[in-house]
């Protein structure tokens, strides 16, 4: 039998989380060694004998035996996790280990690990890198190529993250409601950033980006299984992920170039994910909580409901941006609101809305600000001014994908009468999130 996609990587996350509960978080490196050993063994046996019927169980059993060996050899379980402190006899050791490595318990261990990775002493990018490394089984190289960061930069984040983790006495205790609720927003935020790195990130590899999105969706599903985790806000975030990820199949062409929301072939959108997202969005409306995730999910749902780009309910989008400006105001949200206004009322109204943005100076260096102005000018037929704006945008492009995008827009400025077919209209960013991150960079 063939192991399913990314089986090793996913099992790595499950196994490290579970073993960390056995060995204690200060022995994270030991847990990782045991997992690495189990994989080496699997490789050596499976390459000769073929993959067993239940590869996950095989891996887990191999890791369990190795863990028992180590615990027996040490004979001082007190050096390990506090949970094992009471296990004094050989007779009780094996059942306790079995219990920790049972499927339900592993889900819980992963959740504990997720919360532990979102330690307040770690920066958000470090939290995300740590989650990818420990829970999703990505190597430092794989993370740095997904983020188009240097190996050294990612390694530094992970080393620091592991240090902070090791210094905590135990994994985060998900059974204490007050602590759970305190840490929950950070966990949601990290998963949101992880998802966005996949959806809008810098990796030129579509498959890499897809994987990051899938990981975020997989992890939030674990959060939704915990009674304290399934808050309306978590549902909203999960809805946002599902509704947005549904568009992934239509979002890039065969050479990996971005296709704007308006030019996407909507028949390629993933129906199952859209339905899932709609269901999650309904569940998110069960309380009085209204988060930014609720609003972004609602926007994604407005787009999902439109049969074609022209059918988009712009008034609904604008009023959602108004709500977002009340909850979480930023010049980027305001910029996106201006785009929605231009979409409904024409490019001149859009330009007015951009000039009305307060603290516009915070967008210095942000390429989509000039790109938006360029788009409005182009649609008013002012090709010369549009070209100037796109040139500034091009100079500010942060990755090859953006560069390619702005070059295309410059080419569009060379059309004789500046009139463009609707299908060529490009919405720089109707989706607010990318952007909030880049504001933080400034």
């Amino acid at each position, binding site marked *: 039998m*063939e*192991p399913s996609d*990314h*089986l*090793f*990587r996913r*099992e*790595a996350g499950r196994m490290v989380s579970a073993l960390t509960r056995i060995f204690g978080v200060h022995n994270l490196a030991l847990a990782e060694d045991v997992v*690495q050993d189990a*994989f*080496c063994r*699997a*490789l*050596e*046996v*499976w*390459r*000769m*004998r*073929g*993959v067993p019927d239940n590869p996950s169980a095989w891996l887990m059993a191999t890791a369990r035996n190795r863990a028992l060996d180590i615990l027996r050899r040490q004979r001082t379980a007190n050096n390990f996790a506090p949970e094992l402190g009471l296990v004094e006899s050989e007779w009780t050791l094996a059942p306790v280990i079995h219990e920790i490595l049972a499927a339900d318990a592993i889900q819980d261990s992963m959740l504990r690990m997720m919360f532990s990775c979102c330690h307040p002493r770690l920066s958000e990018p470090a939290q995300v890198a740590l989650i990818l490394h420990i829970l999703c*089984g*990505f*190597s430092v*190289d*794989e993370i740095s190529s997904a983020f188009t960061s240097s190996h050294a930069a990612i390694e530094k984040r992970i080393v620091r993250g592991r240090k902070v983790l090791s210094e905590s006495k135990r994994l985060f205790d998900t059974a204490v409601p007050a602590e759970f609720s305190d840490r929950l927003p950070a966990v949601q935020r990290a998963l949101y950033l992880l998802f966005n790195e996949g959806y809008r990130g810098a990796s030129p590899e579509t498959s890499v980006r897809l994987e990051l999105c899938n990981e975020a969706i997989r992890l939030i599903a674990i959060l939704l299984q915990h009674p304290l985790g399934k808050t309306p806000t978590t549902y909203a975030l999960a809805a946002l992920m599902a509704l947005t990820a549904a568009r992934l199949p239509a979002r890039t062409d065969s050479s990996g170039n971005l296709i704007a929301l308006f030019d996407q072939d909507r028949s390629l959108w993933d129906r199952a994910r859209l339905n899932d997202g709609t269901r999650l969005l309904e569940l998110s409306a069960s309380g009085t909580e209204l988060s930014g995730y609720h609003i972004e999910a609602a926007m994604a749902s407005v787009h999902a409901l439109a049969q074609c780009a022209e059918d988009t309910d712009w008034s609904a989008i604008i009023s959602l941006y108004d709500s977002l400006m009340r909850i979480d105001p930023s010049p980027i949200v305001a910029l996106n609101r201006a785009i929605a206004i231009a979409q409904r009322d024409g490019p001149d109204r859009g330009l007015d809305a951009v000039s009305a943005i307060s603290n516009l100076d915070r967008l210095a260096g942000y390429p989509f600000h000039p790109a938006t102005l360029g788009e409005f000018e182009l649609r008013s037929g002012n090709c010369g001014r549009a070209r100037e704006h796109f040139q500034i945008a091009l100079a500010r492009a942060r990755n090859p994908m953006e560069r390619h995008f702005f070059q295309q827009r410059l080419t569009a400025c060379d059309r004789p009468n500046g009139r463009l077919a609707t299908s060529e209209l490009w919405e720089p960013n109707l989706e607010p999130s990318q952007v909030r991150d880049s504001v933080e960079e400034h």
Partner: protein
Amino acid sequence: MSEFVFLYRGGARDRSPEQMQQVVQKWTTWMKDLEAKGHLKDRGQPLERAGKVVHGKQKTVTDGPFAEAKDVVGGYTLIEATDLSEAVELSKDCPIFEVEGAVEVRPVMKLNM
């Protein structure tokens, strides 16, 4: 047809989970291919990296073999091929070369008795 033993030596262990899974998948494909073409006499067995070495008249037992990691035999397979050069060609598709490993191709002695 003659028989040959492939001895698999070395192979880097410091791979990410994803890379290791890819290695396993490549081996599966390779073995299947050998089997489909009638070259696979016996899949063979993986071997533990270390055991004991017994030697000398005194039958001294030591831990070992302490070869360099790149030389340690990790398993063997029994192959059927027309001659040594075909067996060598067959070994060249082995995924072990992607992880800095080696294949030793040894003809099984033919006894004409």
